[in-house]
């Protein structure tokens, strides 16, 4: 049973990414949306956390939420995949269930 975990808060605001990473299963993936996209930006104290996460899990970030915040796709941690809303829908259907870390 695979789960897509969505994170919608910046790691500088809440620890939902950290909580998620503590319990995530091998077959699960993470999608960063809304303010959660800040976790994917390179050069922050959370970049290493995400760098480690992409070694063992698929990590995605929602492109429209990156652009809405003026963040560029070339400024994100290597290994993080950018998807649009269509890709978001595909991920939801691809994984057995979706868990939103609110």
């Amino acid at each position, binding site marked *: 049973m695979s789960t897509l975990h969505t994170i*919608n808060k910046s790691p500088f605001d809440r620890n939902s990414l950290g909580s998620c990473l503590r319990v995530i299963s091998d077959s699960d993936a993470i999608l960063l949306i809304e*303010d959660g996209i800040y976790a994917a930006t390179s050069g922050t104290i959370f970049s290493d956390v995400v760098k480690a996460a992409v070694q063992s899990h698929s990590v995605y970030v929602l492109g429209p939420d990156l652009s809405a915040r003026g963040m560029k796709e070339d400024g994100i941690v290597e290994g993080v995949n950018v998807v649009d*809303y269509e890709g*978001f*829908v595909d991920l*939801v259907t691809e994984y057995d*269930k*979706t868990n*939103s870390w609110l």
Partner: protein
Amino acid sequence: MKLAIQINEGPYQHQASDSAYQFTRAALAKGHEIFRVFLYHDGVNNATRLAVPPQDDRNITQQWTQLQKEHELDLVVCIAAAQRRGLLDEDEAKRQGKDANNIAEGFRISGLGQLIEAGIEADRLVVFGD
């Protein structure tokens, strides 16, 4: 695939209702069925027709009403959450002895059982919130 959406946050607060709307549109465009959109907690505030956002801003409630019309969406407002926040339809206003109602076109008020049913009937339940 059959998808259900839950919104826990009011409009213009952070981004939950916008994200849910964009997701729902993308899912419909890809040919998926939206079994139900359930408004829970502060999410019920997305269903008021009395809000007047600035003209150069998006009108979140109208966007949902429009999408409901186009795709016959089932937009359900949680009754307990709605009563606490002063969101009423005509029947509820009468039942509670209130002088007005404020629910927008395309939304209906019902109980939490509708969320449980959506969780059972839909293949996926996606929650948007704070």
